[in-house]
């Protein structure tokens, strides 16, 4: 790890003021610190944001669950409110990484990083999330731009993620056997506006599988998906899974998610 100057901000305002072209916000650090140790990333200034009070906490209203950006995965996983309102979201959080990661890593950090194999981005897409930042609000559809790329501007800080409470939903993760990130993760949500199927792990960034949504909008049952072909041409192919295998996993995982949705 290369040397840097460490700052700890106590407010969003202070954090954004400290930010510069060569700084980074530190929340849980579960991706950033290993990247820095491997010298894949280095920064002049590191700004700790996880002690900012406004970034903490979970609020459930009638229609949405709003989670502060610095909320740890373990807190989302064990929140009674989240478990009641969107059980699929708490169970997703409970299966990220291992216990150590869940007790350090935060939802805001995960979303901002937009790892193509991370779990949370699929929840954002499936549950019509609104990303609240230091300066504005961004719809999830417009937030995830590409591999490790988001709509965030330099110095812009995520403050909270607000999820729509669906009628039914489930997240099924087929983990990469080595990293246990999603090799394919399918988030199925039956919202008021219709069914949404968000896929992570299969392309350069999280995306919605509209063909599956169409079928499930007519008939929300696993058998409705029998015989459907998933186009593999856009899917990732690597040493862990070929595009064809990922296509097959998308279908089987979607079926399992629909089956388990509640």
């Amino acid at each position, binding site marked *: 790890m290369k040397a840097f100057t460490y700052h700890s901000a106590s407010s969003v305002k202070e954090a954004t003021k400290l930010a510069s072209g060569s700084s980074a916000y530190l929340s849980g650090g579960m991706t950033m610190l290993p990247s820095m140790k491997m010298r894949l990333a280095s920064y002049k200034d590191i700004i700790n944001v996880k002690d900012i009070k406004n970034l903490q906490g979970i609020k459930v209203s009638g229609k949405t669950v709003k989670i502060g950006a610095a909320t740890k995965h373990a807190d989302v996983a064990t929140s009674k409110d989240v478990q009641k309102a969107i059980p699929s979201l708490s169970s997703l959080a409970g299966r990220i990484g291992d216990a150590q990661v869940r007790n350090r890593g935060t939802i805001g950090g995960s979303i901002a990083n937009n790892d193509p194999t991370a779990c949370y981005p699929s929840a954002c897409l499936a549950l019509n999330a609104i990303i609240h930042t230091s300066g504005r609000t961004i719809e999830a559809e417009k937030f995830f731009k590409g591999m490790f790329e988001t709509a965030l501007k330099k110095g812009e800080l995520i403050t909270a993620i607000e999820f729509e409470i669906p009628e039914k939903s489930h997240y099924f993760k087929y983990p990469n056997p080595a990293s246990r990130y999603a090799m394919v993760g399918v988030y199925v949500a039956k919202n008021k506006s219709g069914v949404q199927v968000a896929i992570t792990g299969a392309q350069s960034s999280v995306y919605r599988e509209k063909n599956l949504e169409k079928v499930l909008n007519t008939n929300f049952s696993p058998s409705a998906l029998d015989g459907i072909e998933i186009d593999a041409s856009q899917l990732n192919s690597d040493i862990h899974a070929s595009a064809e295998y990922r296509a097959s996993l998308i279908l*089987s995982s979607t079926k399992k998610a629909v089956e388990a949705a509640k």
Partner: protein
Amino acid sequence: MTSSMIGSKVERTEDKKFITGKGRYTADITLHGQTHAFFIRSPHARAKIKKVDISKAEKAPGVVTILTGQDIVNDKIGGLIAGWKIVSKDGTDMKLPAHPPLAHEQVNYVGDHVAVVIAETYEQAKNAGELVNVDYKVLKAVVDTAGAMNSEAIYEGIDKNLCFDWELGDKAKTDEAFAKADRVVQININNNRLVPNAMEPRASIGDYNSSTNDLTLYTTSQNPHLTRLVISAFNGVHPEHKFRVVAPDVGGGFGSKIYPYAEDVVIAWAAKKIERPVKWVCERTDSFLSDCHGRDHITHAELAVQNDGKVIGLRVDTIANLGGYGSLFATVTPTYLYAPLILGLYDIPVAYCNVKAVFTNTAPVDAYRGAGRPEATYLIERIMDQAAREMGIDRAEFRKKNFIRKFPHQQCLVHNIDSGDYDAHFDKALKLADYNGFAKRRAKSEAKGKLRGIGISTYIEACGIAPSSVVMSIGAGVGLWESAEVRFNATGNISVFTGSHSHGQGHATTFAQIVADKLGVPMDNIDLVHGDTDKGPFGMGTYGSRSLAVGGSAISKACDKIIEKGKKVAAHMLESTPEEVDFKEGEFIVRNSNKKKTIGEIAFACYLPGTYGEIKSPLPEGVEPGLKETAFYDPINFSFPAGSHICEVEVDKETGETKVVTYSCVDDFGNLINPMIVEGQVHGGLAQGIGQALYENTHYDESGQLLTASYMDYTMPRADNFPEFRIEYTCTPATSNPLGVKGCGEAGAIASPPCVMNAVIDAIGTDVSMPATAEKVWKAINNKTKSKKEAA
């Protein structure tokens, strides 16, 4: 108390320090004035080094020195060695490339050592490392095991990249058997390359005192004495008598820490050169790149079988990948540790095995848990299954038809097996696994939409490595005896010195149990000392499941000598004769009397031999004071653990994911000293073997880049990948050592890969290679369905 020590589940005395974070590993050691080393490694699999420019890096903050291959040449530091000479079938010696500790002219795998930067801090060394400019001429890499012989020669003078073309067995007689066989069964199998992944990455610290000329190397080694010997005698870094090697707590080895590595040589040499301590701690990715890997065979095997199910011959062709250089035990692993074991537990009258070992531009391959025996067992157990399937015979029945039943048994290849009862552990395993009830369980799984399979494997291994006269006659550069010293202190407690090295095996407990049992002293009064060349006698270290059979036997022999001397002293003190004195449970007793002395009293007496007033010397004339005995034990034969393993898997048809749902094993390790530690060894071995079968794979791309260089991509098995293991034992004591023990450290890793793969193949009804990852199994199922449809 004493008679129950052997065979009792004593809790590991060493665990407290490890689980409370108080172990002292090499990386925990910090010396005054210490500098830090960072190695510049080759980013290319194969390249000529045109120039190493250190001018910028030398000026970077904190840099003390930068050493390159040219400095190695200038200082005449010798290369790394392969310690076992193999002779090809045409009578020529194996061919080896030079292996300088820092590459001078050519790099031969990604991770090969090019230069070392030594600075005041590790970060400074690493920063400066980024400024070292190496000008490479990149050459086309040779990566593929099967294709290596048909690729461009990596080294001048080593045609076809062939280290040796070696054979074992009678080819003509084997061919005859095949000519008259009713049936010839064939298989093509791989044995996937594995990264050892010890929990503690390698580390070294060199420390030199110019005023005394003492050099000390702290290092993560399984055998510090051998490291000292090699670095002294072959690398020429420092004379052995002024060179101390310390292997403190070591966090796992699995073979990968047997050998002195380039880093050890360089760190020792550099510390001497700059006259300051130099510390190097491997990062995990460097460990993936540069620890010696394991396995990497491809094999074609044929089995000659009669219609009555009797196997009459075995013919094997193997290509073994040695990687970029010949590592210390690299040449013996795919030859003498492999080929003699291909016969398994079966009475096969003739066999022939040809092994071609090739160099490629990949990390060196050497012994890894089991070393040769897993490869042999995988071969014989896969082909036995295949034969039974082709002939329509039950797989258990087919094995039983061919078991060896008379002992000692001279096999047709090398080994003379002293003892065993194969039916005993096989039948017990069938029962433990409820083999006969499998159909019901299969039906239940099918009802859930899962494919269920059952797999059997049996194994034999040759442990307790090894009789020196035997191994040296077949090329070993050293004898493989072991040493021990049992030293009574005047106050009656004991320091035991062993040449073995514990890096997870629990020697402090097991060896203390032996001494407690032999000498009748409480375990609390026994301390085991190992891992420091300045403390104990020269020893050969720990690998090949040898520590208990060879090292434990040396301790047992040293205890016998203590008793023998004790009898003389006790007899003198009790006014009797040594022949009249019995030793039992810590007491020397004059037969048919109540006259006795405890061993503590004898020890005390031995250290206070003078006369004092009325008190006469307790020592008889001619007996030296002190109570300390050394023994070297050279086994008369290998020991031959054997066992039967049975597992069941469930395969998800949709995803191809395989889950091991039951695993039962019955092993014959001879006598058990501590069954709890043995169970731990079996667990660990099974985890690694199941890992090899289903998860672990070392993947180089065509250019020789290692794609699985971190845990993000290299699949380490985890606890949730395993069922509860059912573990039982049978016992036929070894006759080759006084303890009757056979060795247990590698058995799990040897038996489980074929056991799991046979179960997978049984479940899906078609062949698949290791590791049987979900995708491979999914593909195999789909291809089978496709070809069935096409056929219909």
